[in-house]
Structures are given as C-alpha cells and as structure tokens.
C-alpha cells in the first residue's frame, strides 16, 4: 500500500482539565478525501491546528510527506505544501478578493521581498491568482473588497487562496459552512475533482457532502476518534449513530 501523505500519530493535547485531543491517530492517503466529523466542540479545529502548526501537541507526532513535522512552524509546513483553509475566515478584509488570492500566489512563489514593481502588474502571480478564483467561481468578484463578500463567498476565497499554493495536501475546516444549497453542491463537485490533485482532510458538518465525497470518515467525539471507516461502515456503526448521528440504536 502507498505511504500516507499525512499521518497523525497518537496526538494528545489538553487545555487545563479539558482533553481536546485524546490519543488521536489518523492518516491521509494519496488521492483520497478523508472526512473528519464530530459534534461541536469535539476538537476538530484543535486537531487541525496541530496538523497545520499553530498549536503543539502535548504528545504524539505529525508526519507529512514522510517527515516528522511536529516541531516545525506553520510557515515551514506551508512551504512543504500543506494548504489549509480556516473555519473562521482568516482573510485580509480590507483588501480586494484578487489581492487575497495574489497574496497566496506570492507566498507560493517565495519572493515577497520585492519593493518596487506593483504586485498587481506581476503577470505570473496574477495568472495564478485569477485561475484559482475562477476555479471556485469568484473571478467575477475579483475587484470587490473582501469584507463585502458574503460568508459563503469568504469560504470560497479561503479555498482559492489554498489553491494558489498548489499544495501536496489540503486541510479544510468546514468549507461548506454558509454556502447555501447550490453553493455546497458546486463546491462538492469541485472537491470531488480536486482530490486527484492532492488529498483532502475535510472537516465538515454538511453530512450530504460528507457522504457524497468521503473515501473514509473518522468520527471525533470528546477529542477521541471513536471510529474510522468507509461511508458504509460509519453509517452502520452503532456507537456513531448513538453518539453523533443522534439516533437511538
């Protein structure tokens, strides 16, 4: 079997008495969408922070592209090719949509220390940015100030910025939130294709999207992975139905 692109190994993290990650292990294989689901406050975003670099685990390791990255910074992991989107949009709200996408392209190009030519006149960066905006359906909004976008559109822009990095793995924290029915359907179709460019670790509450997309699903409850398996496995998993899908088994 092929090596996983990303693997989380026995990661634990406490906030005071609260165990936000409890010995979590999961991996992301080439070409797959691995969905991470779980109730509010289960520790999904906290796990993502530990994968992306914003938060150090108390114990355990994160491996990316065959390398132990647990001690690396967010910047180093991003440069290795980890493309992350945020649950709460982290965008330059005063800037235009195009500028945000160009920022991603600038980071990917690794040459931000240029002081003289207007960045918007840089054809190469602009092309990368516009292609990414076009792919998520935001090109028409390129000139709009980001704070004027709807919440759903901000999620799309988050995805577009991640695309500009041409990452080796995507980590997406609830990209569908606030998109509305037609928006989520569109993004679902898009992610379905995107997995062939790089695998996606997808945190999502929209179960229709999860069941339509996921190759595998992990269920996180109180910081602990209570099940990992295919869509069928998870649908039929008694503990999951009780704990998460809210059914009396």
């Amino acid at each position, binding site marked *: 079997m092929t090596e996983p692109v990303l693997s989380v190994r026995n990661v634990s993290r406490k906030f005071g008495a609260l165990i936000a990650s409890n010995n979590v292990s999961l991996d992301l294989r080439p070409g797959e969408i691995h969905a991470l689901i779980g109730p509010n406050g289960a520790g999904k975003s906290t796990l993502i922070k530990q994968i*992306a*670099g*914003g938060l150090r685990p108390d114990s355990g390791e994160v491996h990316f592209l065959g390398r132990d990255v647990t001690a690396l*910074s*967010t*910047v180093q992991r*991003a*440069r290795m090719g980890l493309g*992350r989107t*945020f649950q709460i949009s*982290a*965008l*330059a*709200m*005063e*800037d*235009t949509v195009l*500028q*945000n996408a*160009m*920022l*991603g392209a*600038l*980071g*990917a190009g*690794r*040459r*931000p*220390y*240029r*002081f*003289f*030519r*207007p*960045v*918007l006149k*840089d054809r190469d*960066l602009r092309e990368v940015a516009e292609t990414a905006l076009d792919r998520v359906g935001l090109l028409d909004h390129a*000139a*709009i*100030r980001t704070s004027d976008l709807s919440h759903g559109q901000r999620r799309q822009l988050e995805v577009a*910025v991640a695309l*500009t*990095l041409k990452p080796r793995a995507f980590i997406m924290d609830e990209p569908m939130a606030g998109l509305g029915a037609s928006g989520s359907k569109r993004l679902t179709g898009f992610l379905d294709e995107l997995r062939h460019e790089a695998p996606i670790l997808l945190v999502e509450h929209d179960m229709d999207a999860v069941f339509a997309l996921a190759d595998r699903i992990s269920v996180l409850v109180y910081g602990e992975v209570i099940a990992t398996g295919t869509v069928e496995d998870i649908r039929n998993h008694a503990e999951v139905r009780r704990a998460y899908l809210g059914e009396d088994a």
Partner: protein
Amino acid sequence: MSRETIFNAVLALGLLLFPLWAYVADEPFMITLATRVAILALAGVGLNIALGLGGLVSLGHAAFFGIGGYAMGILAHHAQSYTPLMEVPFLIEGTKSMPVIWLVALAASALAALVIGALSLRTSGVYFIMITLAFGQMLFYFAISWPAYGGEDGLSIYVRNSFPGLNTLDPIQFFLIAYVILAAALMFAAMLAKSPFGLALNAARQTAERVETIGITPYRLRLTAFVISGAITGLAGALFADLNRFVSPSMFSWQTSGEIMIFIILGGVARLFGPVAGAALFIALEHVLGGLSEFWHIYLGLLLLAVVLYARGGIIGTLAGREVAHD
C-alpha cells in the same frame, strides 16, 4: 482621479507654493515654517510605513529621529573643530557635506531599527508600544549623559552643511532640498504600498495567521518594514538638525515620538499624504495658537480627541472619504 489623489496634489502644490510666495514677499520665517513641515512630514512618512502599512504602533521613533540628528551633529561638530571622529583603527573625519551626512544618518538609524525592531517585534500590542518607548528613553538619557557631544546642552553647528551646487544658507534653497527629499520618500512609500512586499506586510497587519499559512513569516516582514521606517525617520532627523543648526537630547524625547505619531493621526493613518497634512496642520496650529497662548497644546489635545472620536480617517479620511479598494 479619486478625491484623495486630488487632495494630495493640492497639498503637494500648496507646500511648494507657500514658501515660494514667502520668498517673493520676503518672509524668510515663513519659508522656515514650510521647511519644518516638509522635514517633520518626512519623519511621519517613515513612521507611517511601520504604523499605517505594518500596524506597528511604535512610540519610539524619536530614537531614529535623534540618531539622524546626532549623525549630523557629530559629523559636523568634528568638521568645524577640525578634530577627527576617531583615529584607531582607522581615521574617520567629520564632514560638512549633506549627502554624506544623509547616508550616515540613513545607515545608523537603519542599524538601530534593526536592533530595536529585532527585540521589540517579539512582542505585540501594548508591550510593543512600551518596549519601543523604553528604547527611545534609553537613547534620550544616553545622549544627556554623553558630555563629549554636549550632554544636556546639545551641539550647535555654526554654519549649515553644504550641498554641491547650492547655497544651503538661502532658506528657499534649503527648503527645496527638504521638499525634493520628501517627494522622493512619498514616491517610495507609494511604491512600497503597492509592491509585493507591501501586499504581504499589509496582510500581516490584518491577519498574521493567514500570512504564515501561505509560507511567509510575519516577523521578518515587520522587521524589514521597521528598518525602512526607521531609516526614513532618521534621514528626517538629520535634516531637522540641519534646519536648526542644533541638535539636543530633546530630539530623542518621547514627546518627539508622540508628535510624529500625532502628525499621522491628524492627517490620516495609512494615508500616503497623512503625515504631510498632519505636519502642516500641526505647524500651523503651533504658529497661530502658540502666538496666542503658551498652553496651545490644550487645543491640540482637544483637536486630537475630536479626530480620534469622530474622524478616524484624520483630515484626509474626512475630506476624501473611505479609502477605495485598490484596483
């Protein structure tokens, strides 16, 4: 053309025409006032790169202003007393040449900004404000306790420094030097804001986490901005000392840091011409109100209060409206 561009053009033209009028009307003091505006605006253009673009609230920019001032004072002092600055390990002599003094002022204040920035930028928010303030105060007391260069009394320079081909003692010619440098700094600042670096720095101000996630280190962006910012304010310090033919520890005082920041807040934070509008208003108030009462700072305080409470965008924000998103 946006309203802001028109306002900027009017301001730039006004700052040029006012001293030309004063020259024709034989009012040399008015030329000196305009020169003060240009030089203090230059100091503000420097701070605005850190504050406006980078979101770095430095309350210690007097450090760089003072270093520029003392670079001029020390070099000119040795030149006028015919004593070398140092002899070992190699000979360094003083100079009265403005271009050389400017280069030294730029380099010295950039170096100081590198050291101060490298330490201060590890903190943020109110700690950053306090640390930059502390560095400024350290240099202030250092200057006071350095008798070789005048200590508390400062240094007087008898004759203004020279610039090839110009008579710098002629107020209008010295004004033009300051004006051209200010114009060059404004052009540089405008370019910087639109450059790849400016985009990244401005994004790091708004969301540092995002900038990290795309593989750029905010700390390095900020340190670079801080060095550029300090160097420009340092150059202004050298010109300011030359204008007064005098440099003293007060250039290092926290009041000086505060005043440079006030120019920006009055004019409009992050607005290209904010420091120019702010410095012009400040000097005008000082001249008019200062003539009426020595407590004119009370009125300045009220004005500042009004701007902060009701007109966050300063003069330019009020007259030119919300900044348009860049094309």
